[in-house]
């Protein structure tokens, strides 16, 4: 039986090491395994070569930082000198600031007078409706758009010029438009004003199968997969006869450091590697089977409090790496996770009509059904999308950087109750 063979090979190869590693990791009591679970340690846990999901924007952003590369062009050493007045076209400028195809557009973050019909602008950046009377000259306005880092190294503002997103003449048009902004924005209703817009709260009952199609995966698909034998005849049920009892808290302690692979494993990668080693099933990350089972394993721990290891040396090192990754500026738009999701930057603010949440509260409902995508997204896919949305290269789902980030995120969410599958727009 393939299962027995695999277990013996992995278990016997490093029995003492496994035991001592387990002790030193000091896993949370609820999740301490009696023995290390068999894992397929060779090869990736997700499809290779890694290609972006169909339907996702396919722009080439390899010239900009990603979570695994640091290649973005450096900021200019000094502001560009503008001696002659810019002769931009304010009408063209007004069109540009509302143009979603141009990197999200300015009104995603700024209220700008009547631009965009004053319809659902964001407020991550300051309200610019009266910038025309704020005493800023052409040079300052130009450079702030071209690359705000010359004035404020810690800015969230994308470097539209340095990163080649807007041409000099387009920036000139925007400057011309900004100079016409001399009065507060004419909001048609309180909904349009981001400072008065009611904060959205997800009201739907995510565990009602009439509301959340993801529940069908845990009610029907996952239990069927649990019993489905692999090439050697073994199924999950061969060793785990009563998952509802056995895994009441397991997922709440994930992700965790896996010494045999030298990286953090989340539930999805664990499922891929463990199923392969024990049943022979090829349930790669992001496959329909993997998502159903990962959702199921978290669902079985619903109500348990997120509680990942933060004490062991590998966990501490991972946390540091994850924190650093969360502050790395990536993509053509030069955003870090923190720019949108930390309390002192973009969290609790709007980008257009979307509310940005803090890191805490972002994990307890994953994997989640996305009504706009008609599919279940796990946290790795969510990471990937976040990168693509800010015009950065995404990584494969099993990238070690994502593991670091996931552990950091889980630490921020310690004590949150799992409620899986979630449901979001």
């Amino acid at each position, binding site marked *: 039986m393939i299962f027995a063979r695999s277990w013996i090979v992995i278990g016997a190869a490093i029995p003492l090491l496994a035991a001592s590693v387990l002790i030193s990791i000091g896993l949370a009591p609820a999740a301490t395994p009696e023995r290390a679970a068999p894992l397929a340690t060779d090869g990736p846990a997700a499809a290779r070569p890694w290609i972006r999901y169909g*339907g996702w924007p396919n722009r080439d952003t390899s010239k900009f930082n990603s979570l695994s590369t640091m290649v973005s062009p450096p900021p200019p050493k000094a502001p560009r000198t503008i001696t002659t007045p810019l002769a931009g076209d304010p009408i063209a400028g007004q069109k540009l600031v509302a143009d979603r195809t141009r990197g999200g557009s300015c009104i995603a973050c700024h209220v700008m007078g009547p631009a965009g019909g004053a319809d659902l602008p964001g407020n991550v950046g300051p309200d610019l409706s009266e910038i025309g009377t704020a005493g800023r000259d052409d040079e300052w306005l130009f450079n702030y758009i071209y690359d705000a880092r010359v004035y404020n190294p810690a800015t969230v503002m994308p470097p539209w010029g340095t990163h080649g997103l807007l041409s000099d003449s387009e920036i000139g048009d925007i400057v011309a438009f900004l100079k016409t902004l001399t009065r507060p924005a004419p909001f048609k209703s309180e909904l349009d004003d981001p400072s008065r817009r009611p904060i959205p709260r997800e009201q739907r009952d995510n565990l009602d*199968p*009439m*509301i959340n*199609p993801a529940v*069908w995966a845990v009610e*029907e698909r996952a239990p069927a997969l649990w019993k489905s034998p692999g090439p050697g005849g073994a199924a999950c049920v061969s060793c785990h006869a009563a998952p509802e009892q056995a895994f009441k808290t397991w997922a709440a302690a994930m992700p965790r450091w896996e010494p045999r692979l030298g990286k953090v494993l989340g539930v999805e990668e664990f499922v891929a590697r463990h199923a392969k080693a024990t049943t022979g099933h090829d349930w790669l990350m992001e496959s329909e089977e993997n998502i159903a089972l990962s959702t199921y394993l978290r669902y079985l721990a619903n109500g348990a409090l997120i509680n990942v290891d933060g004490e062991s040396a590998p966990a501490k090192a991972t946390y540091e790496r994850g924190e650093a990754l969360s502050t790395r500026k990536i993509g053509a738009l030069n955003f870090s996770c923190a720019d949108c999701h930390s309390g002192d930057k973009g969290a609790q603010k709007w980008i257009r009509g979307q509310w940005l949440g803090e890191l805490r509260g972002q994990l307890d409902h994953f994997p989640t059904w996305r009504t706009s995508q*008609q599919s279940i997204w796990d946290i790795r896919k969510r990471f990937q999308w976040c990168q693509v949305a800010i015009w950065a290269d995404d990584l494969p789902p099993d990238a070690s950087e994502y593991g670091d980030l996931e552990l950091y995120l889980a630490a921020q969410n310690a004590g949150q109750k799992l409620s899986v599958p979630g449901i979001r727009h």
Partner: protein
Amino acid sequence: MTNKPRIKVPDQIRKGEIIQIKTLVAHDMENGLRRDQAGKVIPRKIINRFTCSFNGKPVFACDLEPALAANPYFVFSVRVDESGLFNFTWTDDDGT
């Protein structure tokens, strides 16, 4: 996704009571505007009619358009004056 429609009817119904029935059926409700990965338009295919009858008599019906969200969901009310059998039908564009 399962093809079995889901129906929620209250367990205990008193004569003359107005109850709420919830129905859900798995269906992509392709509106004919989406394109596949190759760029080709995915043709329209929706459930275009839902009916509910009680003891053979029509109670509630809906003519659906592509603007109904995927996995069509309805909550509607029925006054139940006698015991009997509810019948629900969902009709696809292709006649099934």
